[in-house]
């Protein structure tokens, strides 16, 4: 938890997509701990059930694959949640997959999956969720980009493309949704321990893991190093922030001395 800040999200309702692991999971837990009702959405129902067990009164679960979900699939989950707790105050989209993509040995299927999960899945979520019947006016949405949006890692062209697409599309979306006083921002984390980064260590030998870690001047990140910023962006302390990207990377993008 954090020492100087305590969030109070009682009487608030949120949807967190990609909540079964990593940063999404921590965000869902922190929101529930702060008193919010949270609909957690992911493919892995078992992992979501574990989340639910932490806060059985607060955390609701919905199994959905962002790559396959139809509009009806999304809306069914929202209708059910809103029916129980009332309209929402915002949402968080954290789903993302990594993977190597390079010109040599280019795998279109992997590249599309990377972009579809981070970008089109996010758009599928928002286009179905940001509606008067689901969210109150003045809601706040946070979606996940990455430091990869700012630099092209060797072997990471699809991931960097996906995350850069997220940060720029957030600006278009912000212009569209401000008519209902809604806000949307992206967050760009550096290296945070999660399933995604763990898999990337195993498969990635294009850059030195030690060198990359050393550039994180404040050390390797944990989900809790990032979720605080997400909860802040969801709060009214961030009520004048929209259409921007917040870099939370332990100093990584500062580069070498």
């Amino acid at each position: 938890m954090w020492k100087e800040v305590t969030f109070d999200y009682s009487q608030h309702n949120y949807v967190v997509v990609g909540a079964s692991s990593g940063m999404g999971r921590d965000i869902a837990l922190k929101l529930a701990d702060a008193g919010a009702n949270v609909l957690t959405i992911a493919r892995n129902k078992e992992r979501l059930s574990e989340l639910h067990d932490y806060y059985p009164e607060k955390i609701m679960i919905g199994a959905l694959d962002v790559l396959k979900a139809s509009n009806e699939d999304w809306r069914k989950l929202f209708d059910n949640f809103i029916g129980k707790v009332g309209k929402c105050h915002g949402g968080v989209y954290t789903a993302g997959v990594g993977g190597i993509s390079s010109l040599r040995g280019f795998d279109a299927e992997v590249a599309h999956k990377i972009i579809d999960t981070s970008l089109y899945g996010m758009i599928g979520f928002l286009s179905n969720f940001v509606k008067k019947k689901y969210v109150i006016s003045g809601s706040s949405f946070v979606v996940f980009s990455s430091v990869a949006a700012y630099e092209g890692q060797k072997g990471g062209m699809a991931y960097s493309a996906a995350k850069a697409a997220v940060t720029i599309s957030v600006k278009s979306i912000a212009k569209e949704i401000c008519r209902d006083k809604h806000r949307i921002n992206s967050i760009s984390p550096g290296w945070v321990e999660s399933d995604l980064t763990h898999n990337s260590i195993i498969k990635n030998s294009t850059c030195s893991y030690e060198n990359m870690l050393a550039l994180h001047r404040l050390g390797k990140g944990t989900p809790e190093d990032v979720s605080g910023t997400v909860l802040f962006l969801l709060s009214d302390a961030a009520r004048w922030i929209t259409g921007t990207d917040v870099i939370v990377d332990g100093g990584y993008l500062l580069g070498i001395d």
Partner: protein
Amino acid sequence: MTERKFLEFLIELMDTDSNLQFETKLADVEEWDSLSYVAFLASIAKFVERRIEPEKVKSAVTVRDLYNLIN
């Protein structure tokens, strides 16, 4: 497209909770903004084969004027 379906389509597109009727003036609907008319053109293309001219959509005054463009 039936009248009822068209109203449903328009309400969903604009995400409005105002009581939209065929006589409703578009200018009176808060959600009929600069984005709505391009979104209307893009979505209606799925239901209508012939091309609708943007100027005709822009000059529509009522909901019925929009409906007449596609029928």
